[in-house]
């Protein structure tokens, strides 16, 4: 515990840095994935190839991607842009599947009703499709947020400072508490972000209690649940 008491500033600094590195890919991933998901949902023939492609991107190990990107994009090897672009790619890869499911989950009757009420495409997207796809989008975003925060740590192997620094430094200096602190703070950051997203979801989607509505509805329909009880 000596280490922790003497390095509390470092831990806070790294946590903040970690958070910044995580936020942009999460947000960018969502924004890029929404139109892609819409496209995959509208053009059914595109859905298969597109989802295979993003699935493929996701299998590239992060370590490889961090070093692959700089020569392709012409960005600095050590720049945070490198890490942010790599993590955005993963976020998009994860989020596109969720987004396409999210738009597919919108009840087509509701959509038809909106058309009948004279909503044009743009207005229908904002007033009907996006809000109703919200719960599934949120579920996806929560997965993206947590895995992004965890992935940021690998950046330390290419010299990008984050809580991951505590792993390599703690290992060299033989200070287990340092590594443990890194792990705990990464999990705490991830869960804090996750909780924040749930709260944000409640505020943005007052009609749906953080996506639990669907599960509850399914359970109500299920006679088996009653039998099992």
């Amino acid at each position, binding site marked *: 515990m000596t280490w922790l008491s003497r390095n509390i500033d470092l831990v806070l600094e790294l946590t903040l840095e970690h958070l910044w590195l995580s936020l942009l890919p999460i947000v960018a991933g969502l924004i890029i994935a929404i139109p892609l998901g819409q496209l995959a949902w509208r053009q059914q023939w595109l859905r298969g190839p597109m989802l295979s492609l993003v699935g493929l991107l996701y299998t*590239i190990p992060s*370590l490889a991607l961090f070093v692959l990107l700089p020569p392709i994009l012409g960005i600095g090897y050590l720049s945070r842009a490198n890490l942010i672009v790599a993590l955005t790619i993963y976020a998009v890869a994860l989020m596109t599947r969720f987004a396409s499911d999210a738009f597919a989950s919108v009840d087509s009757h509701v959509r038809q009703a909106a058309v009948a009420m004279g909503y044009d495409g743009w207005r229908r997207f904002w007033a009907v499709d996006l809000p109703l796809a919200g719960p599934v989008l949120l579920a996806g975003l929560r997965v993206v947020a947590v895995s992004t925060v965890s992935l940021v740590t690998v950046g330390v192997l290419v010299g990008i400072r984050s809580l991951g620094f505590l792993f390599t430094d703690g290992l060299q200096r033989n200070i287990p508490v340092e590594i443990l602190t890194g*792990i705990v703070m990464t999990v705490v950051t991830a869960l804090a972000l996750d909780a924040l997203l749930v709260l944000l979801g409640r505020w943005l989607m007052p009609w749906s209690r953080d996506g639990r509505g669907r599960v509850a509805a399914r359970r109500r329909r299920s006679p088996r649940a009653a039998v099992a009880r």
Partner: protein
Amino acid sequence: MNLFADAFAWLASPEQHTGGDAIAVRLGEHLLYSAIAVLISAAIAVPIGYVIGHTGRGKQVAVAFSGAARALPSLGLLTLLTLFVGIGQAPMAATIVFVVLGVPSVLAGTYAGVEAVDERVVDAARAMGMTEWQILWRVEAPIGLPLLIGGLRSATLQIVSTAVLAAYVGLGGLGTYILRGINLNDYVQMLGGAIVIVALALVLDAAFSLTAWLAESTTRHRPGNAAKPAVVSHTHPQEGTS
């Protein structure tokens, strides 16, 4: 794309196919660690998943556990565990880390598979006098198999991807090329390693797709195979990267 040409030349050069650092050797190490970890993950997660799926209890705990496990940074876990057990036991430390990463996907796939079975089918089985055990074994398990395989697929891809980090604690595997490439600023070597890993992931992915397709086509004639698409896709995103 000169770099890619160089990487393929690197892959083809005879140096990469002899000695202890040969691609086949590294691939073998990588596959061995991954296979052991996937098997242990399945041995732990499938029974628990069946219990959760069948009784409908403990799902919240499983979801919370999966979320927390996804937040765990694998590099940190690997360094900490290796430091505790010593380098001689590093294979054990790495296996534990991979299993921790693999369990949530298999668990989710297993219980989602059981849950996806139409309640009417289960009720019918119960009315026919099947015991709970028989319902699980003869109705829920076969119908849920495609989703279970989906979970295994996610776990496998995640583990294969994370096993790249094993080289950091001296365990070899395909990550050796990437980590050495990074430290030597040798893009070609790194890219060559990455290509092998991506190819491995693709082959495994295809193998699982085929298995899932076979499993699905054997269960398709059964009544009420109601695998809900939304549930299927929610088990996918746990595959992946580290």
